[in-house]
């Protein structure tokens, strides 16, 4: 068979317009976030270090300081932010314009998959069970896109994104936003946590994110180590706060003043 034209050679208008549909999705997110002053991803390569706890209390501190703050719970499979912000699961007002976020403690705006799922139910999708790993990641990325683009955030000074452990959600976020978000990193003092968080921070640097600094959580009892200082030195960023096991509102207000 003679050589024939390939994908990029075909430039006739295509009724499906799949690239245009994807482009429209990206524009929808960009337009929605146009009223948001800054987007900060709270992340860590390590699970169980208290990202959600830090996110919720930081958001409350910023709100108490008079800022407009929203939290997007990007942990789709283990959402905890609504409970931390004292939000129940009342129906979300919905219109063609989007859905309204819930309002939590200290006036923090919030959206979470927990508000949309049956109590205690895992996030499950319709579709073929076999080889579901092939499409599940794309489905979760679409859900994240809708959490960003279909919520009527209005005007906010700061939107905090509470990411799950690992890097997958961060990478999806960079693709959806079209630009890497600023990153606030949470670790506990141990060397093991430092190892995992280091990888996440390197990935964030490689993607072009600005590292705001490190929050060292659960200090003073039980966990030994210098992960916060080690990472701060390695990445030339500040340790913004060391959070003890029993923090007071002042602890969070001081962190809010640093972010």
């Amino acid at each position: 068979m003679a050589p024939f034209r390939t994908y990029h050679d075909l430039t006739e208008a295509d009724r499906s317009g799949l690239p245009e549909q994807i482009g429209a999705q990206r524009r929808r997110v960009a337009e929605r976030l146009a009223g948001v002053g800054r987007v900060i991803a709270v992340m860590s390569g390590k699970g169980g270090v208290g990202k959600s706890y830090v996110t919720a209390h930081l958001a409350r501190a910023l709100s108490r300081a008079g800022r407009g703050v929203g939290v997007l719970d990007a942990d789709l499979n283990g959402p905890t932010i609504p409970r931390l912000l004292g939000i129940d699961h009342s129906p979300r007002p919905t219109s063609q314009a989007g859905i309204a976020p819930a309002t939590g403690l200290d006036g923090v705006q919030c959206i979470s998959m927990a508000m949309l799922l049956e109590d205690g139910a895992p996030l499950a999708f319709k579709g073929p069970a076999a080889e579901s790993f092939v499409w599940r990641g794309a489905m979760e990325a679409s859900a994240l896109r809708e959490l960003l683009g279909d919520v009527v955030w209005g005007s906010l000074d700061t939107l905090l994104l509470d990411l799950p452990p690992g890097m997958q959600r961060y990478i999806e976020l960079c693709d959806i936003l079209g630009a890497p978000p600023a990153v606030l990193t949470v670790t506990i003092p141990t060397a093991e946590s430092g190892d995992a968080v280091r990888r996440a921070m390197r990935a964030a640097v490689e993607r072009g994110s600005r590292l705001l600094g490190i929050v060292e959580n659960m200090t003073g009892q039980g966990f030994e180590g210098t992960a916060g200082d080690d990472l701060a030195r390695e990445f030339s960023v500040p340790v913004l706060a060391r959070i003890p096991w029993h923090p007071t509102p002042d602890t969070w207000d001081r962190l809010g003043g640093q972010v």
Partner: protein
Amino acid sequence: MKFLCVDCDKQMAFEERQLPGDGTLAATFKCPTCGRVVAMLTNPMETQLVSSLGVEIGGRTVPEQPFETVRKMVSTGREDAFEEGTGDGGRGKGTPAWSMDAEARLARVPNFVRGMVKRIYADYARERGIAEITPAVMDMARAELGLEGM
């Protein structure tokens, strides 16, 4: 994904999409020069992958709805997650009425996605000056807008 009629060296144009209901998708493409038609048949996994991107093969017939992918694809959504505004497909001023048969049919749609479906039908009727939505109108909208599964 594009289709090329090799004999004519022409890009084939999308003609029609069908969702048989077994998780597969069929789409036909036609060569604008020789008229040859080919069908693309995707297996359930491939169909799901396209759905997971939130795009429509053949192009969009209705504007993207808020949380469309979540509402269409999540199987563990809470019944009362969304509270539709009364101006969006309800019985507010300027919105079409629903016949009892149409309401009964709509009631069979899971609540998680029902509000969105109701708004799509209402917008369809309003744009065409249809005063009352009946099962026949719903069938017409399904066929015209490609609302398979709604």
